[in-house]
């Protein structure tokens, strides 16, 4: 510390940064509880709201939170892959866009996606086939899993001749605050379709977190990264090969 003053008061900026830090480090499913405690300690709603408006979107995206769509047509995953604007998230499966209130963690409205927001028919063939296989896998293996497949690069590709990239996101959470226990499983698979080499490169990142807090505070944080590859084939064949790769690697992580 440069100078010790009689009363070293924190600046507003510092208070906001601290509040943000607590919010961003909340365990899965607990940000609202953390928010309540931080708001009380901060004792300044204006500063708290500033911190919350910055922290909640980051937290929601990095935790891949799942929100029921306001028209009850299903769930939407909040991810950076599907982000169209600050609070609009694409659900490629239903070609809808969900409007989200990050701080309240609710979907406040739904609209159909516009053509420019969706991938071309060529890309959609691959995305759709993969999505169908992943959905089968997730329903088989995760009691409460939600998944989505996005095109994150090359969505305007009209036909063969260019590379493109898809991302598979799987998110499963269990919130049991009455049992003092919360947990989450997130996996992200980046899949690059390389046209020239006619190969598909796969990179997976898995993260599992659990928090038990009845007699104290015990947290598990496990991370795993892996790579794999397969041949660039027709959309359905790729989808089968890729979902098999994903299933294999995810099963390996088990504790």
């Amino acid at each position, binding site marked *: 510390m440069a100078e010790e003053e009689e009363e070293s008061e924190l600046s507003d900026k510092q208070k906001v940064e601290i509040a943000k830090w607590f919010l961003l480090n909340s365990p899965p499913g607990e940000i609202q*509880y953390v928010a309540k405690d931080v708001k009380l300690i901060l004792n300044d709603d204006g500063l708290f709201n500033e911190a919350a408006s910055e922290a909640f979107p980051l937290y929601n995206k990095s935790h891949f939170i799942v929100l029921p769509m306001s028209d009850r047509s299903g769930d939407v995953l909040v991810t950076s892959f599907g982000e169209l604007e600050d609070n609009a998230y694409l659900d490629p499966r239903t070609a809808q866009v969900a409007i989200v209130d990050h701080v309240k963690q609710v979907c406040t409205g739904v609209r159909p996606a516009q053509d420019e927001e969706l991938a071309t028919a060529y890309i959609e063939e691959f995305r759709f086939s993969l999505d169908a296989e992943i959905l089968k896998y997730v329903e088989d293996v995760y009691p409460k899993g939600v998944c989505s497949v996005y095109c994150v690069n090359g969505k305007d590709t009209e036909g063969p001749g260019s590379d493109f990239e898809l991302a598979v996101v799987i998110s499963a959470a269990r919130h049991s605050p009455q049992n003092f226990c919360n947990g989450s499983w997130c996996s992200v698979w980046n899949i690059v379709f390389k046209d020239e080499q006619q190969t598909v490169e796969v990179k997976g990142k898995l993260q599992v977190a659990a928090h038990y807090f009845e007699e104290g505070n*015990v947290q598990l944080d496990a991370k795993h990264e892996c790579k794999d590859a397969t041949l660039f084939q027709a959309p359905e064949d790729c989808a089968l090969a890729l979902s098999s790769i994903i299933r294999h690697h995810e099963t390996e992580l088990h504790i």
Partner: protein
Amino acid sequence: MKEMEAAMGLMRRIPPKHTETALSALLSLMPNHSSDLLSQVDQPLQVLCDVDCGKEFILCEYNRDADSYRSPWSNKYHPPLEDGSVPSSKMRKLESEANEIFAIYRDQYYEGGSSSVYMWEDENEGFVACFLIKKDGSKTGQGRRGYLEEGAWDAIHVIEVGPEEEENTSYRLTSTVMLTLTTNNEASGTFSLSGSIRRQMNMKLSFADGHLCNMGRMIEEMEGKLRNSLDQVYFGKTREMVCTLRPPSEVAQMRMPES
């Protein structure tokens, strides 16, 4: 004191590896509560070397005065402090003996590590004793997943001893164990399990066997219970959570992992 409740609530949610940062943040947000925060929030234990005898001693609020810490071996402050508070000579005698005995206990159960005991008289004609253990198991420990990159066990046992009544003395033990386990290897990635558990135990025991014997027995019993609890919580509960999120493909019996 709603702020303290909120602060303790936050400490139960923040990832244990960020305990020091979180405490620091709370101290700056709530400067008026600093002594409450420092005494109620458990932090990973740190050690200093007592230059006089070459032995390590553990740092905590109970042996701190200003920015110096008192060694239980030499009874001197590091860095040196004029008029640093020390226990009465009667207390110091008991404290010295406790340190010797506790070091033996620690060696038997932990095969290494550091221990310290600090005692001081309280206002109720009784006294308070704080027993601390720090064990670093990394690099020598072999976990189930291989090489243990980080493995630390910190135990803090605070016993409030009541005034000596006719036959029995009351002892109130509050124990906290902080445990960190991290493995990191190519095949399975990073696996980090950390946190703390706290328990209390009250007993009324005959003074006939002496304070040290009574306190030693309580701590031994408590550590045994905590170790089992930790096994169940650390490995059991977290594994249960993961298996709930994604049931393992072998539907065979779920065995508790051997730690």
